[in-house]
């Protein structure tokens, strides 16, 4: 029996906070049964035709609440399996161990891990379990968020938007027959060439917590927000979209730095509660800034692809391209959330 009080008090389309992840997984299985299959306890989304003999398996995972990441990226040319944790909570080692086993076609498995303390520890334990059973497992850690100081004195930069681009590019390479070492090397290079920064207009409510993750006034925004509502660089008065886009893009450009003549994927991402029209307003300003700097946005991705529940806001990710990464970005992909070339 659904806890109507909790569900309605939160004004969310859920039955109970406890059942949300499984209810959504069952919905994905119903809607995308041609591409994926879903296993429960431990919860894993697996590419329907996995394991593919001789192909490197690509496994990612993370807390739920970031949809379509990661489950929406399971399918041809991207992930072989995704492990959804509780909302904003990293999945557990038994999930990743099961996913690794399910997609291992004999060529080894690459774990794509976002740099969060919990994710790293759970994936490490999973890799130990899988290796104990004879699997070959490598891991790549994404840490593209420029809002966090990368130093000995922090857990390091968070993994955000580049994760989506990496899963597409390395997924394409694995489909094309890259072995585990080459796929790992490519993944590291993609991460090294990508940078992101996000901002939030509003907070979000984790259903189990039942209240907003952080308070923010109507006329304020949080610059440098993470994907779980973690605070970022600074709290400021709200500005016009052009100005916000310029702050995000210029900070990202100066960090790598991206230089005149570089070709990039420009990825304008919505945090979950921002309409597409606003993301295109941001994309317009990002484009203007890049043109001014002589950086060529050779490819674009605009939409809500790595989200934080109903949070309003956006992030800007740039990824420097070369012939190899461009080829695998353009390669066919057929997943619940991304599809082209097929």
């Amino acid at each position, binding site marked *: 029996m659904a806890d109507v009080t909790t569900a309605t008090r939160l004004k969310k389309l859920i039955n109970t906070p406890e059942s949300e992840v499984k209810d959504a997984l069952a919905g994905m299985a119903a809607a995308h049964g041609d591409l994926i299959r879903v296993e429960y306890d*431990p919860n894993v989304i697996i590419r329907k035709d996995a394991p593919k003999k001789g192909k490197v398996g690509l496994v990612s995972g993370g*807390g739920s609440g970031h949809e379509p990441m990661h489950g929406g990226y399971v399918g041809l040319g991207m992930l072989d399996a995704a492990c959804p*944790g*509780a909302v*904003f*909570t*990293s*999945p*557990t*080692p*038994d999930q990743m161990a099961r996913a690794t086993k399910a997609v291992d076609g004999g060529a080894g498995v690459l774990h794509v891990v976002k740099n*969060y*303390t*919990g994710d790293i*520890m*759970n994936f*490490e*334990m999973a890799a130990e379990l899988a290796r104990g059973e004879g699997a070959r497992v490598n891991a790549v850690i994404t840490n593209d968020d420029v809002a*966090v*100081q990368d130093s000995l*004195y*922090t*857990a390091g930069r*968070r993994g955000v938007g580049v994760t989506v681009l990496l899963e597409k590019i390395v997924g394409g390479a694995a489909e094309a027959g890259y072995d585990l070492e080459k796929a790992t090397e490519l993944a590291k290079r993609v991460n090294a060439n990508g940078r992101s920064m996000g901002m939030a207009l509003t907070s979000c409510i*984790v259903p*189990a*917590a039942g209240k907003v*993750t*952080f308070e923010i006034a109507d006329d304020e925004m949080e610059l440098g927000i*993470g994907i*779980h*509502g*973690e*605070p970022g660089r600074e709290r400021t008065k709200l500005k016009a979209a052009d100005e916000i886009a310029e702050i995000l893009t210029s900070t990202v450009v100066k960090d790598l730095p991206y230089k005149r003549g570089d070709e990039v994927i420009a990825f304008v991402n919505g945090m979950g509660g921002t309409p597409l029209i606003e993301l295109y307003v941001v994309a317009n300003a990002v484009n203007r800034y890049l043109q001014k700097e002589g950086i060529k946005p050779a490819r674009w991705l605009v939409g809500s692809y790595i989200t934080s529940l109903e949070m309003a806001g956006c992030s800007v990710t740039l990824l420097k391209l070369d012939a190899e990464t461009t080829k695998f970005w353009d390669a066919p992909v057929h997943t619940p959330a991304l599809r082209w070339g097929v």
Partner: protein
Amino acid sequence: MAVTTAQLVDWLERYAGVIAEQKQYLTGLDAAIGDGDHGINMDRGFQTVLVKIGPVKDKDAGTLLKTTGMALVGSVGGAGGPLYGTFFLRAGAALDGKSDVSREDLVSALEAGLKGVVERGKANLNDKTMVDALTPAIERAKARVQEGASIGEALSSAAEAAETGMRGTIPLKALKGRASYLGDRSIGHQDPGATSSYYMLRTLSEVLAEVPQGANTATS
């Protein structure tokens, strides 16, 4: 007087109760400097522990604690799952096959658990983590046992040291975990992991401080 598996079961059951009671408080501490799920995750984990230890309550202490560790690893997620899971797995491994646990054995098991936490999380003292509560507490328990104190007395001192360590995290700047993203903004907040670790040792001390069964009539 040896510690029995039944007392350890009592500890786990009571600790599950404390976590359930303090769920919102722990989550609130975590919302201030982390991602606001510590109480929720720990509660989910210990509710799972209550179910999973059912069939092993009459087994040895090692089996009990290892079962607890596996239940936590498989249900908590976040950083708490691997850390608390590793704590109980290592403590359980140290008590393999033992049903009557000497005070030295128990202190060694707690030490092994802490060593596992440090290896898994790579935190140092004063990084503003659970290690800040556990380290001084377990050192204190070890010293008291070496002085000849009973296990109840040793754990009572350990709980005091854990509480001091927990409060000591308030002025610290976080150097590990999600709280480290805040830099100076993490100062002034008590670490949620140190808090749940203090509860864990306080509950153990309460269980071990009580008059052993059979002696109740003499004191009432």
